[in-house]
């Protein structure tokens, strides 16, 4: 059970003078609670080994989990394609891609993580969400689908490497050109 920290009242930052600072030593509640006498090194090694075994045991689920994630991604892409102007469809597609980015490497699909990174960049880094090119979204989603379907799980895989790198390069170039375009439009608007 958690031990509730003693109630402390800390002066409001709003009352501080601009430019001033204070260094505060936090209460040692957690240290007092969880630091015990005994040898650390052997405990540490055993705990880490147990955790690695536990992950190994879970890994039999990884393929199924990834297939489920890909299905979610395909459904989200369909909804987005049906109405690219609907904010919730865009948000859902981004959410699924972002989740997949986070877990794919853990589930032993490192190339899927890389493709998700450049897909998420399309959603996050473009100045205008109206200018997301559907063809590039399709290429990313189709690449992820293929990688999971073909079971591309390990490094190195030359085809997956080339595909992930190409998608990242094309996306980065597109984002850079859009940012330049947006800056030029902004400059023209303020000059005019």
């Amino acid at each position, binding site marked *: 059970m958690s031990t509730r920290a003693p109630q402390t009242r800390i002066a*409001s930052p709003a009352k*501080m003078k601009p430019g001033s600072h204070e*260094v505060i030593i936090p209460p040692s509640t957690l240290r007092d609670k969880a630091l015990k006498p005994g040898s650390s090194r052997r405990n540490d090694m055993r705990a880490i080994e147990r955790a690695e075994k536990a992950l190994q045991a879970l890994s039999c689920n990884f393929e199924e989990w990834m297939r489920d994630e890909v299905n979610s991604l395909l459904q989200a892409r369909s909804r987005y394609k049906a109405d690219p102007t609907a904010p919730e469809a865009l948000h859902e597609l981004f959410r699924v891609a972002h989740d997949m980015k986070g*877990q794919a490497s853990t589930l032993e699909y490192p190339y899927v993580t890389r493709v998700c990174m450049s897909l998420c960049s399309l959603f996050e880094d473009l100045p205008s969400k109206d200018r997301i090119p559907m063809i590039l979204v399709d290429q990313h989603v189709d690449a992820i689908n293929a990688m999971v379907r073909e079971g591309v799980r390990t490094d190195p895989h030359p085809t997956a490497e080339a595909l992930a790198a190409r998608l990242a390069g094309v996306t980065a170039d597109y984002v850079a050109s859009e940012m330049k375009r947006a800056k030029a439009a902004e400059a023209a608007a303020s000059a005019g």
Partner: protein
Amino acid sequence: MARVAFDELSILIADSNANMRQIVRATLRSFGVRNIEEAEDGASCLEIFQNSCPDVLITDIKLPIIDGLEVVRLIRTPDTSISPFIPIIILTADTEKRHVIAARDAGVTEFLCKPVSPRSLYLRIKSVVETPREFVRTKQFFGPDRRRFVCSRYNGVERRGTGGGELADSHFEEAGS
């Protein structure tokens, strides 16, 4: 000699993905942690935090409803938070520099990249228990000291305003005193 008793810890995991929460939970259980709670979005993370007051929070940057870094900022608001000093470990695939800086400036304690290895997670949790970081308070920031080390080669001005900074544990007042 001392060891961290993981079975004494209560940990809150916040991640929108159920599979990731299961993986982190299995890892923490293997470390010996018995009291583990989960939140799938920022709103439930804050609710659990307020009700249970966990010892450590492990959270992703992006959460639905209330964003992960907003959760961190709210927890680090000393006027209203039940435990503003709680160690907060970010566990995320958003590893670009801007995300690291944003997390640091929101007041996180440690930053871990996915995929996380059991070893990295274990050592981070151990670190936040064994060597809690000093906190810094300014008008705009309350959180762990963002300076991780003192650079002996720096000969410029102290950029923290009034100089060396005094240890201010006198600012704590126990309730009822």
